């Protein structure tokens, strides 16, 4: 052996020994501050469900029972085949596993799950509704979802749900036989709506709102479930594997996930442009920027005539930032609880796998419009795998 070969051999052995050492080394023990951070992300830190002052029946079990029936009733659709549960499927975390929701047609966005949804401040991916009940109104009158109208909702309530409805909301008024009628529907539906007297319109709107408030009362009962991560946060260090623990450290550290996925639901309840691609050029979906004026003028918002809230209860709406420019293609931070069971990902199901999502954040490439908030993370492939492993424990 030459002298050079000996040196190389020695170096190779040294490197091999070093590698073995790294391999056999266990993860560092969980520190107090890491434990505290885990608790902040855990259901241990979940406060009691706050009241919804805009919905007087929010916590009435009779409303929840009525709401559950309405949620599952395909009769509130133009073809008799679409219910809330068609896309919000109870056995799939109340979502559908599809990139875009499918009712009578195909929606422009991904169906959102419902566990813990009653704690949100804003609803839909763009926050165009400011209460859970105002959210429940939207899909019913969407041509690609239920394709129904509020006048038909009122007639069906009177025909099929009169007793439970009147027990909660008082006697139903006499309703005109209008057929499909709504200020938002097809041309003919809008014409029929315009032909109604204002008092009739208001009576129908009131029933439509109460219908949605009952559905919201049911949805308030859908709570997030305890996961392995919660057991880890409660003190069971063995609940996470060494790789998952490494992923946790990245989640709250180098990968900056916790900047937005914060708190026990792992969402900051706000809107961010994370550079997600659009199927359309230029993009047709402006996210939060396209929703601000809409929610501010929505007659079913917290300050509107169908809300049960006092104006001082409507702080989110009252102090809402109104300039759309910073919110171009900003979408709501989704909760990460149960995320492994909810592929595909992002607001229109653009990314098929969790590793694809991690790679998206790792690369941080600006999207088609607006200001992207991300910076590249420079994660190694081992780090990316650890993050994915951690996400599966949530």
């Amino acid at each position, binding site marked *: 052996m030459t002298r050079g070969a000996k040196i190389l051999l020695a170096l190779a052995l040294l490197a091999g020994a070093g590698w073995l050492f790294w391999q056999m080394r266990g993860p560092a023990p969980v520190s107090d501050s890491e434990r505290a951070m885990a608790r902040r992300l855990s259901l241990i830190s979940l406060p009691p469900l706050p009241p919804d002052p805009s919905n007087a029946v929010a916590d009435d079990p009779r409303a929840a029972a009525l709401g559950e029936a309405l949620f599952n009733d395909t009769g509130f659709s133009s073809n008799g085949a679409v219910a809330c549960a068609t896309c919000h499927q109870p056995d799939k975390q109340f979502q559908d596993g599809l990139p875009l929701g499918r009712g009578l047609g195909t929606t422009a966005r991904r169906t959102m799950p419902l566990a813990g949804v009653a704690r949100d401040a804003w609803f839909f991916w763009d926050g165009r509704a400011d209460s859970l009940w105002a959210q429940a109104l939207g899909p019913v009158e969407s041509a690609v979802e239920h394709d129904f109208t509020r006048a038909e909702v009122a007639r069906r309530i009177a025909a099929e749900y009169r007793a439970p409805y009147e027990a909660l909301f008082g006697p139903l008024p006499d309703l005109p036989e209008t057929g499909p009628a709504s200020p938002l529907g097809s041309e003919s539906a809008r014409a029929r709506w315009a032909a109604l007297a204002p008092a009739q319109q208001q009576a129908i709107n009131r029933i439509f709102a109460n219908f949605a408030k009952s559905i919201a009362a049911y949805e308030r009962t859908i709570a997030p479930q305890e996961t392995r991560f919660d057991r880890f946060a409660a003190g069971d260090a063995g609940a996470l594997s060494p790789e998952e623990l490494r992923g946790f450290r990245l989640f*709250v550290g180098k990968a900056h996930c916790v*900047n937005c996925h914060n708190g026990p639901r792992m969402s*900051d309840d706000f809107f961010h442009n994370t550079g997600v691609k659009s199927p359309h050029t230029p993009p047709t979906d402006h996210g939060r920027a396209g929703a601000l004026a809409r929610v501010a003028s929505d007659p079913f918002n917290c300050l509107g005539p169908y809300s049960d809230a006092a104006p001082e209860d409507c702080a989110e709406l009252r102090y809402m930032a109104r300039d759309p420019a910073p919110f171009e293609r900003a979408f709501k931070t989704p909760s990460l609880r149960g995320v492994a069971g909810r592929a595909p990902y992002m607001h229109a199901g653009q990314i098929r796998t969790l590793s694809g999502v991690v790679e998206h954040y790792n690369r941080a490439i600006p999207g088609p419009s607006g200001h992207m908030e991300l910076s590249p993370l420079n994660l190694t492939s081992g780090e990316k795998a650890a993050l994915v492993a951690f996400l599966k424990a949530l």
Partner: protein
Amino acid sequence: MKKILLPLALLLVALAYFVITKQMRPAPAPMGGMSGMSGGMSGMAMQPAPAGLDLARKRRSDAGLFVAEIAPQSPDFDRNTIHAWRLTLKDAAGNPVSGAEIKADGGMPQHNHGLPTRPEVTPGAEPGQYLIRGLRFHMPGWWELRLDVAAGAQHDSLTFNLMLE
């Protein structure tokens, strides 16, 4: 013997690459000491603020016309729930300034975004007291809160730095 040199060198390079890129174990998360914050987990996940950032909650306005002091209305406020801060405004001589028109704005310089809400500043019960309503800080880290103050003919601005976990 020279035949063995190349494979050995390749092996060494491959091993070194493997050790460096794939097998790095995370070091225990660094606990950056962040001034102006309470609690033990400060520093995790947050981009550190620039060194020497002035976190004082009482400060003189840019042109020296006013002295302002802020404090959260509730000491254990939840940064991500809409809440209010108290503001005390005095002139350079230390006299309370009432009836000022005050605009509140701000944002996160490191994330290049503004406030998530549109706060309002309303007069409080005492002379020189105001309430900054409608604040919500949706992310942890360094926030700026800017106040534009107009009292009579006097206009001045000031910027507070907040480190919120």
